[in-house]
């Protein structure tokens, strides 16, 4: 009887616990699949994507936050939004931007073109999409040309970078009046042409060439009329790194330079160099080394120029990267050593420059303005006193320069390029101390 009663008791307990047990086990089972298991290092927004994909607010926030540093994750999320509404031009445009940033230009173009076909596209988004398609078309060419052409007028307070007219040289006489600080206007023209041939192999090997030209004709001070042409060319060899986020290439190149000064042949240079390109995260690094054999020719205004002939070796690092909100930076650090025919003209120079191009546009206008503050410093250490200037003091000169450029969009590829630049040289030799303010403006065609 007691045994039967005990069995009945356990049956009742088991019967009561059965549904509870099922409930608990089911809950455990469900909890094993819940988003809380995904916590780990996952962000709350991404946990939301997994647990509540239909939470549009969460998805939009995640897409925007991921765009900054996780391009692929942002692509996945914007493609998710495109599933929910395939007619949104903004989503298609953003996908184009993201694929562009990955270097997947064909995919980017596909999304930009599809954005153009959407009914809700705004005029400024249309303009941006068309601009980017044009850039992509250029990037996908086997032979790519980029550059600019500019012309304009400039005013300089001291185009010859001379000292004051009353500066007394060591010999007791004043400086040659042709080189004393005197303001003048000039007309100038400038161009740059960059050419890249893509061999379309898996290493990304290319052949690159560039030409930079500059010509300025003074209105009065023709001893400072200058024409300059520099050519560089060489193959760039890609080096596989095994890391898709890191590129590495090496480029040997030849460089040739020629210049006219005071409308007479003045300078010719021929040499070569070696440069590397790599990136650390978003920062591009281009260290380089270059040796140029320089040849200067004496002329009426510059009878001692041939003493500058010799070898110029430069070593430096160019770097660039983004900062934020359309703001980027480019910099150049360099060291140069000139070993010239005339000993006192030989020098060492240390230089540093930085550019901070800031792209912005006004609301409702897709055109891009570019404001570029610049700053730089060079320190020149000559090897010996120059008897013609000061036979007892070895020149030591520091140049500071600051500038502000503004590119104002005019129409499609044409901008009004303006520049204000101030230079000041401080030297232990009075004749090398100077300052100069330059203001220039002119239309620029960029391609």
């Amino acid at each position: 009887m007691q045994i039967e009663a005990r069995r009945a008791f356990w049956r009742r307990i088991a019967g009561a616990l059965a549904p509870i047990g099922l409930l608990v086990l089911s809950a455990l089972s469900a909890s094993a699949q819940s988003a809380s298991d995904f916590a780990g290092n996952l962000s709350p927004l991404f946990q939301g994507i997994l647990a509540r994909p239909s939470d549009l607010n969460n998805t939009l926030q995640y897409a925007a936050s991921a765009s900054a540093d996780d391009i692929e994750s942002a692509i996945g999320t914007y493609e998710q939004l495109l599933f929910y509404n395939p007619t949104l031009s903004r989503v298609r445009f953003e996908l184009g931007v993201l694929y562009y940033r990955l270097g997947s230009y064909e995919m980017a173009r596909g999304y930009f073109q599809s954005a153009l076909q959407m009914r809700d596209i705004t005029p400024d988004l249309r303009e941006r999409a068309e601009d980017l398609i044009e850039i992509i078309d250029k990037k996908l060419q086997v032979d790519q040309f980029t550059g600019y052409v500019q012309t304009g007028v400039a005013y300089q307070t001291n185009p010859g970078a001379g000292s004051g007219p009353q500066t007394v040289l060591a010999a007791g006489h004043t400086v040659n009046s042709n080189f004393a600080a005197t303001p003048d206007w000039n007309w100038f023209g400038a161009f740059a042409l960059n050419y890249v041939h893509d061999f379309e192999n898996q290493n990304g090997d290319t052949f690159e060439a560039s030409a930079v030209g500059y010509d300025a004709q003074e209105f009065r001070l023709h001893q400072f009329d200058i024409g300059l042409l520099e050519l560089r060319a060489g193959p760039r060899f890609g080096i596989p790194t095994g890391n898709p986020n890191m590129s590495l290439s090496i480029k040997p190149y030849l460089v040739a330079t020629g210049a006219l000064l005071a409308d007479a042949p003045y300078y010719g240079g021929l040499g070569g160099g070696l440069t590397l390109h790599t990136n650390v995260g978003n920062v591009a690094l281009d260290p380089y080394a270059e040796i140029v054999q320089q040849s200067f020719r004496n002329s009426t205004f510059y009878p001692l120029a041939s003493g500058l002939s010799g070898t110029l070796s430069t070593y430096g690092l160019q770097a660039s990267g983004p900062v934020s909100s359309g703001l980027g930076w480019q910099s150049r650090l360099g060291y140069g050593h000139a070993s010239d025919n005339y000993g006192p003209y030989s020098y060492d120079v240390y230089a540093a420059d930085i550019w901070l191009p800031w792209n912005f546009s006004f609301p409702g206008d897709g055109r891009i303005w570019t404001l570029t503050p610049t700053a730089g410093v060079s320190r020149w250490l000559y090897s010996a006193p120059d008897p013609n200037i000061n036979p007892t003091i070895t020149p030591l000169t520091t140049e500071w320069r600051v500038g502000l450029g503004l590119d104002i969009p005019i129409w499609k590829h044409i901008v009004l390029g303006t520049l204000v630049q101030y230079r000041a040289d401080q030297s232990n030799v009075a004749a090398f101390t100077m300052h100069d303010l330059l203001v220039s403006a002119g239309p620029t065609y960029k391609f």
Partner: protein
Amino acid sequence: MRAYKIIAVLLAGATLTSAPALGQQVGTATAVNPLSESTPPGAATAPLTVGARIIHKERIHTTPTGTVQLAFLDKSTLSIAPNTSIVIDEYVYDPNSGRGHMLTSLTQGALRFVGGSLSHEGEASFATPAAAIGIRGGTVTITFGPNGAEIIDHFGIVTIHNGAGTVTIYRPDFKVRVLNWTTLPGPIERVLSSDIEHLPRFTSLPGQNGGVSGLHSVSIAECGVFGTRSNNCPDTPWVPTDTGLNDANQIITQGTQQGTGTTAPHRHGS
């Protein structure tokens, strides 16, 4: 005796209830257009719906109108085109260490894989009857049909291997075709815009909404950041226009310094 029967029923019920959980959840169906179906291991085929949990060994099949996007724990996504059959063969991922591996079989159709943590570690791979595809840090589109497989590299390093050999794509916008398992993959070719235009559809058709309605507009600023343009935007490369000016300044400064101590010659025109 009856008590044992009740406990047995209880355990059996619990086992059945937890059967789908025997496979660990590895991701979520973040968008689904009908008709798309899934077959979890040991379970019947059923229509897939948005928000459904995806477990490993799960088979997913889309019909001519069906498309699916899956999001995985490591932040990778898989967009599946119509008429496609895949199986998530293996998926192991530890969010804390960021390690694991993923293997997906594509037996028919097309998919786009956008890589996450696993692919960045080189641990994402796909199997087709024509080739095995390993992905490092990448985004790829893979199609497989009667004419073999085609693999497009959108980003990253993609290794294609089969019984005849191995090729590796290092550059975005390049592709390779593979006829079958015994034919060497290749050659590697540049992707053309027509290749992109003719890709299968990896998103909704007009009128479809991926299972989530209500997205009529998005209020994001350009390049993915709220409020202002960001440096994520690909702008026209900035070209410093003072390069020639600076070189000219240096030449003139040097000329002036050496000319300062000379005697003034006659000026032009004087």
